[in-house]
Protein backbone atom coordinates (compact mmCIF):
# COMPACT_ATOMS: atom_id res chain seq x y z
CA UNK A 1 0.00 0.00 0.00
CA UNK A 2 2.76 2.34 1.04
CA UNK A 3 4.75 1.42 -2.05
CA UNK A 4 1.87 2.06 -4.43
CA UNK A 5 1.25 5.52 -2.93
CA UNK A 6 4.89 6.30 -3.32
CA UNK A 7 4.81 5.12 -6.94
CA UNK A 8 1.75 7.27 -7.66
CA UNK A 9 3.38 10.32 -6.13
CA UNK A 10 6.52 9.77 -8.17
CA UNK A 11 4.44 9.39 -11.34
CA UNK A 12 2.62 12.67 -10.68
CA UNK A 13 5.92 14.35 -9.93
CA UNK A 14 7.45 13.15 -13.19
CA UNK A 15 4.36 14.13 -15.18
CA UNK A 16 4.43 17.63 -13.71
CA UNK A 17 8.12 17.91 -14.38
CA UNK A 18 7.63 16.81 -17.98
CA UNK A 19 4.84 19.35 -18.47
CA UNK A 20 7.01 22.13 -17.02
CA UNK A 21 9.96 21.08 -19.13
CA UNK A 22 7.88 21.08 -22.33
CA UNK A 23 6.46 24.48 -21.48
CA UNK A 24 2.84 23.35 -21.91
CA UNK A 25 0.23 25.68 -20.48
CA UNK A 26 -3.42 25.26 -19.79
CA UNK A 27 -6.02 27.91 -20.43
CA UNK A 28 -9.62 28.15 -19.28
CA UNK A 29 -12.21 30.81 -19.80
CA UNK A 30 -15.99 31.13 -19.83
CA UNK A 31 -17.90 34.03 -21.34
CA UNK A 32 -21.65 34.65 -21.62
CA UNK A 33 -23.07 34.14 -25.11
CA UNK A 34 -26.39 34.39 -26.90
CA UNK A 35 -28.31 31.21 -27.61
CA UNK A 36 -28.40 32.02 -31.34
CA UNK A 37 -25.20 34.01 -31.49
CA UNK A 38 -22.11 33.64 -33.62
CA UNK A 39 -18.95 31.85 -32.55
CA UNK A 40 -15.68 32.22 -34.51
CA UNK A 41 -12.76 29.96 -33.66
CA UNK A 42 -9.32 30.00 -35.25
CA UNK A 43 -6.32 27.84 -34.55
CA UNK A 44 -3.34 27.17 -36.76
CA UNK A 45 -2.08 23.86 -35.46
CA UNK A 46 -3.21 21.26 -32.96
CA UNK A 47 -6.88 20.40 -32.55
CA UNK A 48 -10.22 22.12 -32.28
CA UNK A 49 -13.06 20.19 -30.65
CA UNK A 50 -16.38 21.99 -30.52
CA UNK A 51 -19.52 20.70 -28.86
CA UNK A 52 -22.95 22.24 -28.47
CA UNK A 53 -24.67 22.56 -25.13
CA UNK A 54 -27.79 24.17 -23.66
CA UNK A 55 -26.05 26.86 -21.62
CA UNK A 56 -25.91 30.48 -22.84
CA UNK A 57 -22.16 30.65 -22.52
CA UNK A 58 -18.99 29.72 -24.33
CA UNK A 59 -16.45 27.69 -22.43
CA UNK A 60 -12.88 27.38 -23.67
CA UNK A 61 -10.32 24.96 -22.32
CA UNK A 62 -6.97 24.71 -24.04
CA UNK A 63 -3.67 22.99 -23.78
CA UNK A 64 -0.99 25.21 -25.28
CA UNK A 65 2.56 24.34 -26.14
CA UNK A 66 5.42 26.76 -25.71
CA UNK A 67 5.09 28.15 -29.22
CA UNK A 68 1.69 29.65 -28.49
CA UNK A 69 1.64 33.22 -27.26
CA UNK A 70 -1.92 33.32 -25.89
CA UNK A 71 -5.57 32.62 -26.51
CA UNK A 72 -7.89 35.57 -27.01
CA UNK A 73 -11.54 35.13 -26.11
CA UNK A 74 -13.81 38.07 -26.67
CA UNK A 75 -17.50 38.67 -27.05
CA UNK A 76 -19.26 41.58 -28.66
CA UNK A 77 -22.85 42.03 -29.83
CA UNK A 78 -23.61 38.31 -29.89
CA UNK A 79 -20.33 37.33 -31.55
CA UNK A 80 -17.82 35.35 -29.55
CA UNK A 81 -14.30 35.03 -30.92
CA UNK A 82 -11.76 32.45 -29.81
CA UNK A 83 -8.36 32.93 -31.37
CA UNK A 84 -5.07 31.17 -30.76
CA UNK A 85 -2.37 33.81 -31.17
CA UNK A 86 1.14 32.84 -32.24
CA UNK A 87 4.21 35.05 -31.96
CA UNK A 88 5.16 37.04 -35.05
CA UNK A 89 8.50 35.24 -35.21
CA UNK A 90 6.80 32.56 -37.25
CA UNK A 91 7.22 29.87 -34.64
CA UNK A 92 4.46 27.36 -35.08
CA UNK A 93 2.90 26.50 -31.78
CA UNK A 94 0.19 23.97 -31.24
CA UNK A 95 -2.96 24.36 -29.22
CA UNK A 96 -5.60 21.79 -28.35
CA UNK A 97 -8.87 23.63 -27.95
CA UNK A 98 -12.05 22.28 -26.37
CA UNK A 99 -14.85 24.74 -26.88
CA UNK A 100 -18.43 24.37 -25.73
CA UNK A 101 -20.94 26.68 -27.36
CA UNK A 102 -24.72 27.21 -27.26
CA UNK A 103 -25.94 24.49 -29.60
CA UNK A 104 -27.91 26.83 -31.88
CA UNK A 105 -24.91 29.08 -32.48
CA UNK A 106 -23.65 29.89 -35.94
CA UNK A 107 -20.19 28.37 -35.87
CA UNK A 108 -17.14 29.26 -37.95
CA UNK A 109 -13.87 27.38 -37.49
CA UNK A 110 -10.70 28.27 -39.40
CA UNK A 111 -7.65 26.08 -39.06
CA UNK A 112 -4.48 25.38 -40.97
CA UNK A 113 -3.13 22.00 -39.90
CA UNK A 114 -5.34 21.62 -36.85
CA UNK A 115 -7.87 18.81 -36.92
CA UNK A 116 -11.43 19.98 -36.33
CA UNK A 117 -14.26 18.05 -34.67
CA UNK A 118 -17.80 19.25 -34.03
CA UNK A 119 -20.63 17.49 -32.20
CA UNK A 120 -24.07 18.58 -31.12
CA UNK A 121 -24.04 21.90 -32.95
CA UNK A 122 -27.43 22.53 -34.56
CA UNK A 123 -26.76 25.94 -36.09
CA UNK A 124 -25.01 26.77 -39.36
CA UNK A 125 -21.46 25.44 -39.50
CA UNK A 126 -18.61 26.88 -41.58
CA UNK A 127 -15.55 24.74 -41.27
CA UNK A 128 -12.29 25.50 -43.08
CA UNK A 129 -8.92 23.82 -42.89
CA UNK A 130 -5.83 23.61 -45.04
CA UNK A 131 -4.38 20.23 -44.11
CA UNK A 132 -6.31 19.43 -40.98
CA UNK A 133 -8.97 16.72 -41.02
CA UNK A 134 -12.58 17.61 -40.30
CA UNK A 135 -15.08 15.42 -38.50
CA UNK A 136 -18.49 16.97 -38.07
CA UNK A 137 -21.93 15.96 -36.92
CA UNK A 138 -24.68 17.49 -39.00
CA UNK A 139 -27.34 19.06 -36.87
CA UNK A 140 -30.03 19.87 -39.40
CA UNK A 141 -28.69 23.29 -40.36
CA UNK A 142 -26.60 24.17 -43.35
CA UNK A 143 -22.95 23.31 -43.64
CA UNK A 144 -20.23 25.04 -45.64
CA UNK A 145 -17.00 23.12 -45.55
CA UNK A 146 -13.74 23.72 -47.33
CA UNK A 147 -10.51 21.82 -47.00
CA UNK A 148 -7.39 21.73 -49.12
CA UNK A 149 -5.80 18.41 -48.26
CA UNK A 150 -7.58 17.43 -45.09
CA UNK A 151 -9.96 14.50 -45.08
CA UNK A 152 -13.59 15.06 -44.21
CA UNK A 153 -16.02 12.87 -42.30
CA UNK A 154 -19.59 14.00 -41.90
CA UNK A 155 -22.38 12.23 -40.13
CA UNK A 156 -25.98 13.39 -40.25
CA UNK A 157 -29.28 12.24 -38.86
CA UNK A 158 -31.35 12.42 -42.02
CA UNK A 159 -32.42 16.02 -41.41
CA UNK A 160 -32.55 18.03 -44.64
CA UNK A 161 -29.98 20.80 -45.00
CA UNK A 162 -27.88 22.48 -47.63
CA UNK A 163 -24.42 20.99 -47.64
CA UNK A 164 -21.53 22.56 -49.55
CA UNK A 165 -18.34 20.56 -49.34
CA UNK A 166 -15.16 21.10 -51.31
CA UNK A 167 -11.66 19.73 -51.06
CA UNK A 168 -8.64 19.76 -53.29
CA UNK A 169 -7.16 16.38 -52.42
CA UNK A 170 -8.98 15.42 -49.27
CA UNK A 171 -11.40 12.51 -49.22
CA UNK A 172 -15.00 13.14 -48.24
CA UNK A 173 -17.19 10.63 -46.40
CA UNK A 174 -20.76 11.66 -45.74
CA UNK A 175 -23.29 9.43 -43.99
CA UNK A 176 -27.00 9.97 -43.40
CA UNK A 177 -27.13 13.36 -45.01
CA UNK A 178 -30.30 14.79 -46.53
CA UNK A 179 -31.44 17.78 -48.53
CA UNK A 180 -29.20 19.49 -51.05
CA UNK A 181 -25.59 18.50 -51.55
CA UNK A 182 -22.95 20.25 -53.58
CA UNK A 183 -19.61 18.47 -53.33
CA UNK A 184 -16.43 18.97 -55.31
CA UNK A 185 -12.93 17.59 -55.21
CA UNK A 186 -9.98 17.43 -57.53
CA UNK A 187 -8.27 14.21 -56.55
CA UNK A 188 -10.07 13.16 -53.41
CA UNK A 189 -12.68 10.45 -53.23
CA UNK A 190 -16.31 11.32 -52.56
CA UNK A 191 -18.25 8.66 -50.67
CA UNK A 192 -21.74 9.89 -50.03
CA UNK A 193 -24.78 8.30 -48.45
CA UNK A 194 -27.95 10.38 -48.32
CA UNK A 195 -31.20 9.37 -46.67
CA UNK A 196 -33.24 11.73 -48.82
CA UNK A 197 -31.78 14.09 -51.39
CA UNK A 198 -33.54 16.92 -53.22
CA UNK A 199 -30.55 17.82 -55.32
CA UNK A 200 -27.05 16.45 -55.65
CA UNK A 201 -24.19 18.02 -57.58
CA UNK A 202 -20.90 16.18 -57.34
CA UNK A 203 -17.81 17.06 -59.32
CA UNK A 204 -14.40 15.50 -59.44
CA UNK A 205 -11.37 15.67 -61.66
CA UNK A 206 -9.55 12.41 -60.95
CA UNK A 207 -11.20 11.24 -57.75
CA UNK A 208 -13.93 8.62 -57.72
CA UNK A 209 -17.50 9.41 -56.72
CA UNK A 210 -19.58 6.84 -54.84
CA UNK A 211 -23.18 7.67 -54.07
CA UNK A 212 -25.76 5.58 -52.31
CA UNK A 213 -29.17 6.65 -51.11
CA UNK A 214 -32.65 7.85 -51.86
CA UNK A 215 -33.72 10.77 -53.95
CA UNK A 216 -36.87 12.73 -53.15
CA UNK A 217 -39.57 12.94 -55.81
CA UNK A 218 -38.45 15.20 -58.64
CA UNK A 219 -34.88 15.36 -57.39
CA UNK A 220 -31.98 16.45 -59.58
CA UNK A 221 -28.74 14.50 -59.58
CA UNK A 222 -25.66 15.65 -61.47
CA UNK A 223 -22.25 14.06 -61.23
CA UNK A 224 -19.27 14.73 -63.48
CA UNK A 225 -15.66 13.69 -63.53
CA UNK A 226 -12.79 13.72 -65.95
CA UNK A 227 -11.03 10.46 -65.11
CA UNK A 228 -12.70 9.44 -61.88
CA UNK A 229 -15.27 6.65 -61.78
CA UNK A 230 -18.90 7.40 -60.98
CA UNK A 231 -20.67 4.73 -58.98
CA UNK A 232 -24.27 5.65 -58.24
CA UNK A 233 -26.88 3.53 -56.49
CA UNK A 234 -29.86 5.80 -56.13
CA UNK A 235 -33.51 4.95 -55.77
CA UNK A 236 -36.10 7.66 -56.15
CA UNK A 237 -39.72 8.14 -55.33
CA UNK A 238 -41.30 8.55 -58.75
CA UNK A 239 -38.19 7.31 -60.51
CA UNK A 240 -36.00 9.43 -62.73
CA UNK A 241 -34.98 10.05 -66.29
CA UNK A 242 -31.31 9.22 -66.65
CA UNK A 243 -28.65 10.29 -69.09
CA UNK A 244 -25.16 8.86 -68.85
CA UNK A 245 -22.36 10.03 -71.14
CA UNK A 246 -18.75 8.99 -71.34
CA UNK A 247 -16.08 9.57 -73.92
CA UNK A 248 -13.89 6.54 -73.33
CA UNK A 249 -15.15 4.95 -70.14
CA UNK A 250 -17.48 2.00 -69.70
CA UNK A 251 -21.11 2.20 -68.67
CA UNK A 252 -22.85 -0.48 -66.68
CA UNK A 253 -26.24 -0.61 -65.00
CA UNK A 254 -28.46 -2.96 -63.06
CA UNK A 255 -31.53 -2.68 -65.30
CA UNK A 256 -30.17 -4.24 -68.47
CA UNK A 257 -30.22 -1.09 -70.55
CA UNK A 258 -27.73 -1.07 -73.41
CA UNK A 259 -25.52 1.97 -74.00
CA UNK A 260 -25.51 3.41 -77.49
CA UNK A 261 -22.47 4.61 -79.39
CA UNK A 262 -21.98 7.98 -81.06
CA UNK A 263 -21.80 6.61 -84.59
CA UNK A 264 -18.17 6.37 -85.69
CA UNK A 265 -17.02 8.76 -82.96
CA UNK A 266 -15.76 7.46 -79.63
CA UNK A 267 -18.09 7.68 -76.69
CA UNK A 268 -21.04 5.95 -75.16
CA UNK A 269 -24.40 7.15 -74.05
CA UNK A 270 -27.11 5.57 -71.96
CA UNK A 271 -30.46 7.18 -71.48
CA UNK A 272 -33.89 6.16 -70.42
CA UNK A 273 -36.45 6.39 -67.69
CA UNK A 274 -36.99 4.51 -64.46
CA UNK A 275 -40.41 4.58 -62.85
CA UNK A 276 -42.41 7.71 -63.66
CA UNK A 277 -39.29 9.67 -64.58
CA UNK A 278 -40.09 12.35 -62.00
CA UNK A 279 -36.45 13.11 -61.24
CA UNK A 280 -33.39 13.73 -63.38
CA UNK A 281 -30.09 11.88 -63.25
CA UNK A 282 -27.11 13.07 -65.31
CA UNK A 283 -23.74 11.37 -65.11
CA UNK A 284 -20.88 12.56 -67.29
CA UNK A 285 -17.25 11.56 -67.48
CA UNK A 286 -14.44 11.56 -69.98
CA UNK A 287 -12.51 8.39 -69.19
CA UNK A 288 -14.02 7.21 -65.95
CA UNK A 289 -16.31 4.20 -65.73
CA UNK A 290 -19.93 4.69 -64.75
CA UNK A 291 -22.12 2.35 -62.77
CA UNK A 292 -25.77 3.21 -62.28
CA UNK A 293 -28.35 1.31 -60.30
CA UNK A 294 -31.70 2.33 -58.89
CA UNK A 295 -31.69 -0.05 -55.97
CA UNK A 296 -29.35 -0.67 -53.06
Amino acid at each position, binding site marked *: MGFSRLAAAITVLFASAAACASGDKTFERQVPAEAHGVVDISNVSGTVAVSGWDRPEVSVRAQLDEGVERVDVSTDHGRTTVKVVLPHSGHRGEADLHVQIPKDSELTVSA*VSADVTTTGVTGLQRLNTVSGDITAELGGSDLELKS*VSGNVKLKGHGQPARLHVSTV*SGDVHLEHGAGDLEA*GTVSGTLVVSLDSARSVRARSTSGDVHFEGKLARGADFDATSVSGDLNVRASAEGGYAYEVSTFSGDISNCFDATPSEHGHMPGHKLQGTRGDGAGHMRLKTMSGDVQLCDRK
Partner: protein
Amino acid sequence: MSGADERKVSSLRELSPAIEPARDLWPQIEARINAERSTAAAALPRIARARAVPPRWLAAAAVVASVAVGVWIGRSVLPAARSGAGVESPLSASRATFADAPTALDVAYVSDPRYQRDRAALMKTLQARLAALPPPARDKVMASLAAISRAKQDLENALGKDPGNALLQELLVNTYQDEMRVLTDVHEASDPGRGI
Protein backbone atom coordinates in the same frame (compact mmCIF):
# COMPACT_ATOMS: atom_id res chain seq x y z
CA MET B 1 -79.19 56.95 -89.37
CA SER B 2 -80.86 60.05 -88.34
CA GLY B 3 -83.41 62.55 -89.46
CA ALA B 4 -85.48 61.58 -92.48
CA ASP B 5 -83.72 58.22 -92.90
CA GLU B 6 -85.00 57.08 -89.54
CA ARG B 7 -87.76 54.47 -89.64
CA LYS B 8 -89.04 51.85 -87.30
CA VAL B 9 -88.16 48.18 -87.96
CA SER B 10 -90.60 45.77 -86.45
CA SER B 11 -89.12 42.57 -87.84
CA LEU B 12 -85.70 41.29 -89.08
CA ARG B 13 -87.36 40.32 -92.32
CA GLU B 14 -87.83 43.98 -93.13
CA LEU B 15 -84.04 44.40 -93.32
CA SER B 16 -82.21 43.93 -96.60
CA PRO B 17 -80.45 40.53 -96.73
CA ALA B 18 -77.36 42.13 -98.26
CA ILE B 19 -75.93 45.59 -98.46
CA GLU B 20 -73.84 46.12 -101.53
CA PRO B 21 -70.86 48.43 -101.11
CA ALA B 22 -70.88 51.59 -103.07
CA ARG B 23 -67.89 50.31 -105.08
CA ASP B 24 -66.23 46.98 -105.85
CA LEU B 25 -63.63 46.39 -103.07
CA TRP B 26 -62.28 43.05 -104.32
CA PRO B 27 -59.57 44.33 -106.67
CA GLN B 28 -57.94 46.20 -103.78
CA ILE B 29 -58.24 43.22 -101.43
CA GLU B 30 -56.82 40.86 -104.04
CA ALA B 31 -53.92 43.18 -104.73
CA ARG B 32 -53.16 43.41 -101.02
CA ILE B 33 -53.27 39.62 -100.56
CA ASN B 34 -50.94 39.13 -103.50
CA ALA B 35 -48.57 41.77 -102.17
CA GLU B 36 -48.47 40.08 -98.74
CA ARG B 37 -47.86 36.69 -100.38
CA SER B 38 -44.94 37.98 -102.36
CA THR B 39 -43.45 39.73 -99.31
CA ALA B 40 -43.81 36.55 -97.25
CA ALA B 41 -42.27 34.50 -100.03
CA ALA B 42 -39.29 36.85 -100.20
CA ALA B 43 -38.79 36.73 -96.42
CA LEU B 44 -39.27 32.96 -96.13
CA PRO B 45 -35.79 31.82 -97.19
CA ARG B 46 -34.18 34.07 -94.60
CA ILE B 47 -36.46 32.82 -91.83
CA ALA B 48 -36.04 29.26 -92.99
CA ARG B 49 -32.27 29.68 -93.03
CA ALA B 50 -32.36 31.16 -89.54
CA ARG B 51 -34.51 28.30 -88.30
CA ALA B 52 -32.40 25.77 -90.13
CA VAL B 53 -29.35 26.59 -87.97
CA PRO B 54 -29.04 23.51 -85.79
CA PRO B 55 -29.45 24.38 -82.13
CA ARG B 56 -26.47 22.18 -81.37
CA TRP B 57 -24.22 24.50 -83.30
CA LEU B 58 -25.51 27.42 -81.28
CA ALA B 59 -24.93 25.40 -78.14
CA ALA B 60 -21.49 24.37 -79.34
CA ALA B 61 -20.64 27.97 -80.16
CA ALA B 62 -21.75 29.02 -76.69
CA VAL B 63 -19.68 26.27 -75.12
CA VAL B 64 -16.64 27.20 -77.17
CA ALA B 65 -17.10 30.80 -76.10
CA SER B 66 -17.32 29.61 -72.51
CA VAL B 67 -14.17 27.56 -72.96
CA ALA B 68 -12.42 30.60 -74.34
CA VAL B 69 -13.46 32.64 -71.32
CA GLY B 70 -12.45 29.76 -69.07
CA VAL B 71 -9.08 29.56 -70.79
CA TRP B 72 -8.57 33.27 -70.39
CA ILE B 73 -9.50 33.25 -66.71
CA GLY B 74 -7.80 29.98 -65.98
CA ARG B 75 -4.59 30.78 -67.78
CA SER B 76 -4.49 34.22 -66.24
CA VAL B 77 -3.80 32.76 -62.82
CA LEU B 78 -1.72 29.79 -63.82
CA PRO B 79 1.97 29.61 -63.13
CA ALA B 80 4.03 30.83 -66.05
CA ALA B 81 6.07 27.69 -66.37
CA ARG B 82 7.28 28.75 -69.77
CA SER B 83 8.23 32.27 -68.85
CA GLY B 84 11.57 31.22 -67.46
CA ALA B 85 11.29 33.91 -64.82
CA GLY B 86 11.77 33.13 -61.19
CA VAL B 87 13.25 30.19 -59.42
CA GLU B 88 12.56 26.75 -60.79
CA SER B 89 10.40 24.94 -58.28
CA PRO B 90 8.92 21.48 -58.17
CA LEU B 91 5.65 23.08 -59.12
CA SER B 92 6.98 24.85 -62.17
CA ALA B 93 8.89 21.72 -63.09
CA SER B 94 5.74 19.65 -62.88
CA ARG B 95 3.83 22.25 -64.86
CA ALA B 96 6.47 22.34 -67.52
CA THR B 97 5.55 18.80 -68.42
CA PHE B 98 2.14 19.84 -69.63
CA ALA B 99 2.57 23.51 -70.46
CA ASP B 100 5.22 23.32 -73.12
CA ALA B 101 2.92 22.50 -75.98
CA PRO B 102 0.43 25.30 -76.53
CA THR B 103 -2.91 24.12 -77.74
CA ALA B 104 -5.13 25.78 -80.30
CA LEU B 105 -7.02 27.36 -77.45
CA ASP B 106 -3.83 28.87 -76.04
CA VAL B 107 -2.72 30.47 -79.23
CA ALA B 108 -5.32 33.21 -79.14
CA TYR B 109 -4.13 34.40 -75.76
CA VAL B 110 -0.41 33.79 -75.35
CA SER B 111 0.46 36.67 -77.65
CA ASP B 112 -1.46 39.15 -75.49
CA PRO B 113 1.21 41.07 -73.46
CA ARG B 114 -1.26 41.93 -70.74
CA TYR B 115 -2.04 38.26 -70.35
CA GLN B 116 1.66 37.42 -70.24
CA ARG B 117 2.31 40.05 -67.60
CA ASP B 118 -0.60 38.95 -65.41
CA ARG B 119 0.36 35.36 -65.79
CA ALA B 120 3.96 35.95 -64.76
CA ALA B 121 2.87 38.00 -61.74
CA LEU B 122 0.40 35.38 -60.62
CA MET B 123 2.99 32.67 -61.05
CA LYS B 124 5.13 34.40 -58.44
CA THR B 125 2.14 34.78 -56.18
CA LEU B 126 1.21 31.16 -56.48
CA GLN B 127 4.68 29.98 -55.59
CA ALA B 128 4.73 32.20 -52.53
CA ARG B 129 1.28 30.99 -51.56
CA LEU B 130 2.34 27.39 -51.91
CA ALA B 131 5.46 28.02 -49.86
CA ALA B 132 3.27 29.28 -47.02
CA LEU B 133 1.33 26.02 -46.83
CA PRO B 134 2.31 23.18 -44.52
CA PRO B 135 4.61 20.86 -46.51
CA PRO B 136 2.19 17.88 -46.65
CA ALA B 137 -0.61 20.15 -47.86
CA ARG B 138 1.72 21.76 -50.39
CA ASP B 139 2.65 18.37 -51.85
CA LYS B 140 -0.98 17.36 -52.14
CA VAL B 141 -1.98 20.65 -53.74
CA MET B 142 0.81 20.30 -56.27
CA ALA B 143 -0.31 16.76 -57.01
CA SER B 144 -3.86 18.03 -57.49
CA LEU B 145 -2.72 20.81 -59.79
CA ALA B 146 -0.82 18.20 -61.77
CA ALA B 147 -3.99 16.08 -61.92
CA ILE B 148 -5.89 19.07 -63.25
CA SER B 149 -3.20 19.70 -65.81
CA ARG B 150 -3.29 16.10 -66.99
CA ALA B 151 -7.08 16.30 -67.17
CA LYS B 152 -6.90 19.42 -69.32
CA GLN B 153 -4.33 17.84 -71.58
CA ASP B 154 -6.40 14.68 -71.93
CA LEU B 155 -9.53 16.66 -72.66
CA GLU B 156 -7.80 18.84 -75.21
CA ASN B 157 -6.31 15.78 -76.88
CA ALA B 158 -9.73 14.17 -77.00
CA LEU B 159 -11.24 17.39 -78.37
CA GLY B 160 -8.60 17.27 -81.07
CA LYS B 161 -10.12 14.01 -82.22
CA ASP B 162 -13.72 15.10 -81.76
CA PRO B 163 -13.86 18.93 -81.77
CA GLY B 164 -17.64 19.12 -81.65
CA ASN B 165 -18.05 16.90 -78.62
CA ALA B 166 -20.20 18.87 -76.19
CA LEU B 167 -19.42 16.47 -73.33
CA LEU B 168 -15.69 17.12 -73.62
CA GLN B 169 -16.23 20.85 -73.96
CA GLU B 170 -18.35 20.88 -70.82
CA LEU B 171 -15.80 18.85 -68.88
CA LEU B 172 -13.01 21.15 -70.05
CA VAL B 173 -14.89 24.19 -68.82
CA ASN B 174 -15.50 22.38 -65.51
CA THR B 175 -11.80 21.63 -65.23
CA TYR B 176 -10.80 25.23 -65.78
CA GLN B 177 -13.32 26.26 -63.16
CA ASP B 178 -11.97 23.65 -60.76
CA GLU B 179 -8.48 24.93 -61.34
CA MET B 180 -9.66 28.41 -60.48
CA ARG B 181 -11.24 27.07 -57.31
CA VAL B 182 -8.02 25.38 -56.28
CA LEU B 183 -5.95 28.48 -56.93
CA THR B 184 -8.43 30.60 -55.02
CA ASP B 185 -8.42 28.14 -52.13
CA VAL B 186 -4.64 28.14 -52.05
CA HIS B 187 -4.63 31.91 -52.14
CA GLU B 188 -7.05 32.10 -49.21
CA ALA B 189 -5.41 29.26 -47.29
CA SER B 190 -2.03 30.93 -47.29
CA ASP B 191 -3.25 34.43 -46.62
CA PRO B 192 -1.71 35.34 -43.26
CA GLY B 193 -4.41 37.90 -42.59
CA ARG B 194 -7.34 35.69 -43.32
CA GLY B 195 -6.40 32.05 -43.26
CA ILE B 196 -8.55 29.72 -45.29
